[in-house]
């Protein structure tokens, strides 16, 4: 009986905590849709912790931004689109200044809601590639690069390795991808590039339920013998794919993950044989940056981080930090533009749309060389910035290429077309009414 009461009481209390606490007027409310549970927690826990820890560090060290405290609240999605949409509906009544869906599936569902609810959506290097078009998607931001940019960088990289893009003619290129909106996103771009450069694209979908059971898919790879493989994987799918690639003797230095397939926990479980596996990234790893040291000092050392101390500085953790750098810089920018300290979603949209994080600013906040400088404009909500290739040496990632810029002349026309197609496919899509601010 006591147990029954305890469970009932806990459940009631939990639901009250989740639903009843309103965001205080003296705070800026930033909900983070995260997933520390489920099949994708391997990536989600690191990203979520990086995001939360940087914002909490600003609270601890500076008392927030511009003197206003940040109210950071996580909502667990389990990387499930339905739960993510529930989270969005749950947080929107609390006047969030921005929503970070951290799932392409969730992002696709809430894109149509953003303009109606006046809540900017920040999908940092994920989500709908076409939403980089600020004219049709004024409330959606996806800097620093789209999946189409990423796939074009991969083609550019392997073109370089083969001796030129023209040498890709007749080559076989495989795409191993999570069979979900996220995984499918680069397909149109790769199909277009296959036509332009004359390579054959082979598709290898991994259903989410088979993330840890991929042996037959890799037998297909063994049969087809693609010259290069690009992986758009996530969570538990990645280490399994690397192990299976090892099993069929696929050369690791011809296996390239996108920027969500290059976490430390993606390569580590495969052991020393994963040595040579490549992955794109747009942020540096390690703790050797003042910004990470500050997080360690103000959050981790005080026991306020949910992430294991020894894993601070890993790729996905630092990715989460970069996500929050963008939020924080956009808040500062919005405060400057609007002249208000307590900004709302509309103000932050303006802050994001005129965001410029220069190399000097990165240095100022202790993130020199941590990521590439980025600039968002009214027309271009992405920036189409570059990324670089890292290689797993058996214990850690090492940078093995210069920054590679996307093939913009191929990507940008496709984004424009995809954006137009999206609008025409969604009858009644609102015309942009928001004026453009001057860049800060």
């Amino acid at each position: 009986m006591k147990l029954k009461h305890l469970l009932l009481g806990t459940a009631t209390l939990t639901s009250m905590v989740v639903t009843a606490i309103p965001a205080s007027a003296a705070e800026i409310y930033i909900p983070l849709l995260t997933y520390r549970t489920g099949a994708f927690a391997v990536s989600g826990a690191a990203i979520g912790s990086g995001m939360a820890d940087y914002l909490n560090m600003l609270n601890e060290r500076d008392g927030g931004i511009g003197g206003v405290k940040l109210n950071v609240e996580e909502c667990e999605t389990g990387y499930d689109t339905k739960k993510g949409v529930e989270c969005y509906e749950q947080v929107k009544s609390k006047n969030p200044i921005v929503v970070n869906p951290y799932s392409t599936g969730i992002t696709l569902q809430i894109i149509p809601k953003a303009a109606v609810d006046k809540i900017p959506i920040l999908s940092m290097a994920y989500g709908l590639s076409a939403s980089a078009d600020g004219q049709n998607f004024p409330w959606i931001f996806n800097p620093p690069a789209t999946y189409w940019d990423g796939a074009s960088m991969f083609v550019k990289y392997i073109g370089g390795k083969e001796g030129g893009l023209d040498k890709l003619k007749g080559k076989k290129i495989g795409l191993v991808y999570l069979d979900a909106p996220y995984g499918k996103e680069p397909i149109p771009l790769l199909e277009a590039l296959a036509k332009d450069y004359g390579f054959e694209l082979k598709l290898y979908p991994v259903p989410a339920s088979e993330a840890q059971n991929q042996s037959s898919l890799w037998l297909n790879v063994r049969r087809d013998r693609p010259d290069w493989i690009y992986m758009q994987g996530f969570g538990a799918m990645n280490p399994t794919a690397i192990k299976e690639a090892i099993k069929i003797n696929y050369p690791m230095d011809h296996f390239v993950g996108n920027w969500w397939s290059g976490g430390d926990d993606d390569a580590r479980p495969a052991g020393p044989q994963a040595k040579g596996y490549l992955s794109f990234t747009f942020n540096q790893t390690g703790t050797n940056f003042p910004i990470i040291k500050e997080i360690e000092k103000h959050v981790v050392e005080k026991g306020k981080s949910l992430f294991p101390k020894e894993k601070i500085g890993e790729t996905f953790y630092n990715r989460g930090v970069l996500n929050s750098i963008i939020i924080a810089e956009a808040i500062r920018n919005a405060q400057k533009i609007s002249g208000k300290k307590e900004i709302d979603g509309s103000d932050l949209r303006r802050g994001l749309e005129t965001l410029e994080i220069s190399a000097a600013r990165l240095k100022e906040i202790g993130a020199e060389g941590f990521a590439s400088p980025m600039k968002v404009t009214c027309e271009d909500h992405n920036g189409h910035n570059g990324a670089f290739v890292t290689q797993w040496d058996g214990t850690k990632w090492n940078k093995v290429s210069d920054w590679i810029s996307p093939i913009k002349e191929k990507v940008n026309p496709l984004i424009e077309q995809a954006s137009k197609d999206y609008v025409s496919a969604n009858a009644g899509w609102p015309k942009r009414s928001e004026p453009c601010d001057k860049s800060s």
Partner: protein
Amino acid sequence: MDLLYKIFIDPFMQMGQAPDLLVQTLWEGLVSGVLYALIALGFVLIFKASGVFNFAQGIMVVFAALTLVGLYALLRRWGVAPGDLAAYLALLLTIGVMFVLAVAVERLVLRPLVNQPDIILFMATFGLTYLLIGLGQLVFGGESKVMIAEDLHLPSGSIEVKMLGGFVNFQKIDIAAAVIASVMVAGLAVFFQSTRIGRALRAVADSHRAALSVGISLEQIWIVVWFAAGIVALATGIMWGARSEVSFALEIIALKALPVLILGGFTSIPGAIVGGLIIGIGEKLGEFYWGPLLGSGIESWLAYVIALLFLLYRPQGLFGERIIERI
């Protein structure tokens, strides 16, 4: 015409042209099948003893593997060295945890629900699933872990055999998984078919009240089968964890036992074994030879299609009992 060729001729041509790949596919199917059979066995044991489909069997696989890895990390932190000593100690402690779990389930879930309709017990296993998910995440965290295969002296690496004009790769961990799973399946089958507890188990499966009336202790039987299911879950977690990693995604794989059970019958140990092999080999052959016709990635639903095809002819499964209810 072209489609008919691709369905009925081309796959068999491929089998003939690259027989090494056929052998490799069959081997992969066999390993998966044996592991599916092991998972299915966990379901069958509990279903036989209590008439309950234990929805929590999948999460028990994750929970057992997480407990093993978590306890190992704890022992190493406490300075237990060398690694293999800590690993075997953690294994023993995990077996202890699975026993405690079996006792707790009997005391807190099953005993208060004796003689309740099966659906109530089934729903209780749903609750148990969420409890174990929450408990696992609370204690061990949500992130994936690497299985301590090396410290448990499980083999690593592979044996590449040149044959049939190509090669077939046998991962040593897969060989170990197939052997261990086969031994466990055989051992459990013998234990429950030929021992006193096995007979008592069958009596409990027929009727709780009748079993009680002849002096069989329901509590004891339930603890035994839940503990056995826990051991099966631990073995599955170790093997699958070593082949991939220990994450909550393993729970989804465990649900692959569903079509195995539909195929083999919920009450049959031989059914679980044969069903596991049919599903394992069938889905690998299907995905490899016919999958590309449908855009690949058909493995996730093919198992259910195979099971449904069998169901059309034998609704009780291959070895299941035909249940006739008179109204």
